[in-house]
């Protein structure tokens, strides 16, 4: 024992609770916050093991000031989830360092519980959920250990599962109520309104495309989004998930017109809101639409991905004039949205207005002189209509699709077309759009994803980050915007069979080291990877996807009409049912725990009561025998025999033929 009055076991539990609850969120916080917290814990552990007291209060003061200033410097302004979590994590470490009284450990437990509860704000997949539950179990166990006398030295040999089992029981008991609250309580869009800026978040699609400066494309196998189609999944060559349109070209790089164009432009149409400029008549949709639901992983951006000619009725989703969908606020949480897409459509078939025409023809004249000269030559020879077929056949014959292209530092398109001849989708898309513009054809680059992996058993589509893609749309009088994918001309299989198939046996494909994708091709790992994904998918659809509208539909299906009275009634009925289940279970449990002896005794007493003999609490078996013998004198001998057998069983602890006794009791008929 030291001056903390916590035993070694309790200290270890407390430390584990701290580390386990803080670790998952540390991943999302600045490195030094995690390090300082861990350092504080380690320091204290060292002091405790040496029997030293906590550092003096000036040291603590200094440390607090330093950490506080660090957090202020890191986050400006210091508001939001990240600074708050950083403060909590740092504070937990410092508290452990300065803890000098036993009751302070309680404060630490509360801190740990709170930190465990924020974990789901940072990551929402099923694994994170399990991790949060695990850390809550550990923290609660630590709490229960603090209340116990644990004098024994910690060692793995006397490690007892009993406290953990107890906490697991408690957690298990809380599950039914949690489910009821989950299903019935009003769904707050809580997470989606908390702005979480996670710097480490990556996406395969960005709103700035400068292919010439990239020499190697990292291929993350992380999931970008999953899609649940109402009908069959369309063939891979049709799966062009449009995310954002890049139409501002500076000679090298592409970005959306005016960068914040989407957000600022008044032409975005929001459901249930008046719009000053309704461009919807510019689009003609026909044919059979695809109906599907997208479960998008956080991107920290507002753009949404959908098949072309998409429309969504979700309140927070707007449609831009270039037919991309956009969310009102950045996607910082897994988000679900329903889309209806018409694969057959015509967009702006008749005319482009002045600014549009101007923007989509701007190729930043003079920035790629060699290409400009070539295209001018082509146009002169066989007209502008031949430029695209010429270009695609050129790509097909002389260009190479590679993930490790050379850097094109100068006139990017020139160098790609004339010198390098190697590139990936962005190079081809960029060059194609630029060249079409040079030929006087309005064109733009579209960034998004192409293809996806169909889950073999669940049937939904998984779109990975390595499915990120860029392609081109050009405008034709009478037809409107048409998609052309130059990459398909270079590497048709990339589009037809998907990215992974294309690179499967290629050394270039090097998915992240820790991913299960590494083991692709090994049947077992493949199976595990798909099972994990389908677990995550179910979690997304069932838990995270359970929103107000689904809740309302559910109520409607169950109740017919949704009124407050009915809701309250349902709640009351369910709670009553839960209570009843608990009581029955409790009763069953006590009965199960009754010994065989007690059961026999109960049967005997029940039998006698049934025969009209009143049994007072203080009556012994002999008293009962007297009572019954008086009432039924002719049965006295029989009763005396039974009494003596039961007495022998209960008091003499003699083993008797219980089955025989049970039968005799059952056969007891008096009078």
């Amino acid at each position, binding site marked *: 024992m030291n001056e903390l009055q916590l035993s070694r076991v309790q200290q270890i539990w407390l430390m584990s609770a701290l580390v386990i609850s803080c670790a998952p969120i540390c991943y999302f916080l600045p490195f030094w916050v995690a390090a300082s917290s861990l350092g504080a814990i380690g320091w204290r552990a060292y002091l405790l093991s040496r029997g030293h007291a906590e550092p003096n209060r000036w040291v603590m003061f200094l440390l607090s000031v330093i950490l506080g200033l660090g957090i202020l410097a890191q986050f400006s302004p210091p508001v939001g989830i990240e600074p708050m979590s950083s403060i909590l994590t740092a504070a937990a470490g410092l508290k452990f360092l300065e803890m000098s009284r036993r009751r302070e450990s309680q404060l630490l437990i509360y801190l740990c519980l709170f930190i465990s509860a924020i974990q789901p704000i940072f990551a929402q997949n099923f694994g994170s959920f399990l991790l949060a539950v695990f850390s809550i179990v550990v923290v609660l166990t630590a709490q229960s250990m603090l209340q116990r006398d644990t004098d024994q030295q910690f060692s793995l040999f006397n490690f007892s599962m009993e406290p953990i089992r107890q906490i697991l029981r408690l957690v298990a008991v809380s599950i039914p109520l949690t489910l009821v609250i989950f299903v019935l309580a009003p769904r707050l869009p809580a997470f989606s309104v908390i702005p979480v800026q996670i710097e480490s978040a990556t996406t395969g699609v960005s709103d700035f495309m400068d292919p010439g400066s990239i020499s190697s494309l990292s291929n993350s196998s992380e999931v970008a989004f999953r899609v649940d189609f109402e009908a069959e999944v369309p063939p891979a060559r049709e799966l062009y998930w449009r995310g954002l349109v890049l139409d501002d070209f500076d000679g090298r790089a592409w970005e959306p017109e005016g960068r914040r164009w989407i957000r600022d432009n008044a032409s975005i149409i929001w459901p249930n809101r008046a719009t000053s400029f309704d461009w919807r008549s510019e689009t003609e949709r026909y044919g059979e639409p695809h109906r599907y639901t997208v479960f998008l992983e956080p991107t920290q951006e507002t753009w949404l991905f959908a098949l072309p000619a998409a429309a969504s009725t979700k309140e927070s989703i707007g449609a831009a004039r270039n037919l991309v969908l956009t969310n009102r606020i950045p996607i910082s949480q897994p988000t679900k949205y329903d889309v209806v897409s018409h694969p057959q459509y015509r967009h702006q078939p008749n005319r482009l207005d002045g600014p549009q025409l101007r923007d989509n023809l701007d190729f930043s004249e003079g920035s790629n002189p060699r290409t400009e000269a070539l295209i001018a030559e082509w146009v002169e020879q066989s007209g502008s209509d031949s430029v695209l077929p010429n270009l695609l056949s050129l790509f097909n014959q002389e260009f190479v699709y590679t993930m490790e292209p050379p850097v094109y530092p100068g006139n990017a398109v020139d160098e790609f077309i004339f010198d390098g001849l190697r590139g990936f989708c962005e190079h081809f898309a960029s060059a194609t759009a630029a060249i079409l513009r040079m030929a006087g054809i309005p064109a733009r680059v579209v960034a998004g994803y192409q293809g996806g992996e169909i889950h073999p058993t669940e049937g939904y589509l998984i779109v990975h980050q390595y499915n990120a893609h860029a392609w081109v749309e050009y405008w034709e009088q009478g037809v409107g915007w048409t998609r052309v994918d130059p990459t398909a001309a270079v590497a048709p299989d990339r589009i037809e069979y998907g990215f992974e198939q294309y690179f499967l046996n290629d050394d270039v494909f090097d998915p992240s080291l820790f991913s299960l994708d590494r083991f692709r091709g090994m049947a077992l790992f493949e199976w595990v990877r798909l099972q994990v994904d389908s677990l995550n998918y179910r979690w997304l659809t069932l838990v995270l996807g359970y929103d107000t509208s689904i809740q309302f539909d559910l109520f409607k299906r169950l109740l017919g009409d949704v009124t407050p009275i009915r809701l309250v009634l349902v709640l009351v009925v369910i709670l009553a049912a839960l209570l009843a289940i608990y009581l029955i279970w409790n009763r069953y449990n006590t009965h199960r725990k009754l010994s065989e*002896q*007690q059961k026999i*005794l*109960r049967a005997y*007493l029940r039998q006698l009561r049934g025969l009209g003999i009143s049994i*007072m*609490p*203080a*009556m*012994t*078996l*002999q*008293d009962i025998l007297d009572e019954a013998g008086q009432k039924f004198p002719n049965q006295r001998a029989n009763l005396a025999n039974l009494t003596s057998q039961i*007495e022998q069983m*209960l*008091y*003499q*602890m003699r083993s008797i033929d219980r089955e025989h006794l049970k039968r005799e009791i059952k056969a007891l008929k008096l009078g």
Partner: protein
Amino acid sequence: MLSTVDSLDSFEESLGSAVAEISRVLYGKNETIKLSLCCLLARGHLLIEDLPGLGKTTLASAIGKVTGLDYRRVQFTSDMLPADLTGFSMLDKESGKFEFQQGPVFCQLLLADEINRSSPKTQSALLEAMEERQVSADGISHSLPAPFFVIATQNPFSLAGTFPLPESQLDRFLMRISMGYPDSADERQILSGSDPRALMDQLNIVLDSAELVRLQELVSQVKTSEVVLDYVQRLIEGTRVGGDFVHGISPRGGMALVQCSRAWALISGRNYVTPDDVQAVVAPVFGHRLTNRSSGSQASLEMVKEWIQQVDVLAS
């Protein structure tokens, strides 16, 4: 040495005849006689509380006669000193040394009549001897003979000039009983019969002290099942939480109850305890250890008997 409880017949017989023998001089008091013997077997001491003339002394001397124990009687008075009881050191003229002269406490069965008449000092000397089973004089401990059994009496009604035993001292007595009046038939027999004092000399020894010691050893071997212990615990718990008594029963009180129940089972010819045994002894064991909350006095036997009616025996 016979030490298994399974061969009880001979003991049952001798215990039975001891009760019968004593009842020759004490009519209609079989219950009281059995309780006294039970207390003796449980190696405890007995406190008899009643009016004079109800047969306390007769009971004590009859037990002495029947068991063949070395029996002494001391009348406690207010001027009695501890040395009058325990003995004192005296100069032996021939040897020139101090020699310890044993007092009346050096016996096997001591009747301490009207214990509350003596000063607390003397009372505590006796109680110490009861507890320690030895007497200390001039720094030398003198062991008392075994078995050592004290029957103390006190008159609970005329309290003028008495020193009532405090609770802690009362706790030293395993049981407290009262004699009570005989019923009319027994009364008639007493009135018509000959003088009990004359009969006393005719009593035979039916249970010698060696046999008594063996029986005392057997008591601890009487089986006490979990079910019975559950009942005992419910009784103990009831005294603590019910609000009927100022204090609950101490663990020592609980142990006393178990020990007496075992002795009672033995007297009843069984080698295992039943709740009937517990009920038979609970009032004498608990009565003087409980203070009635409403009256502020010690719980009477009747009150305890009444109280246990609310405690579940079978708890099913």
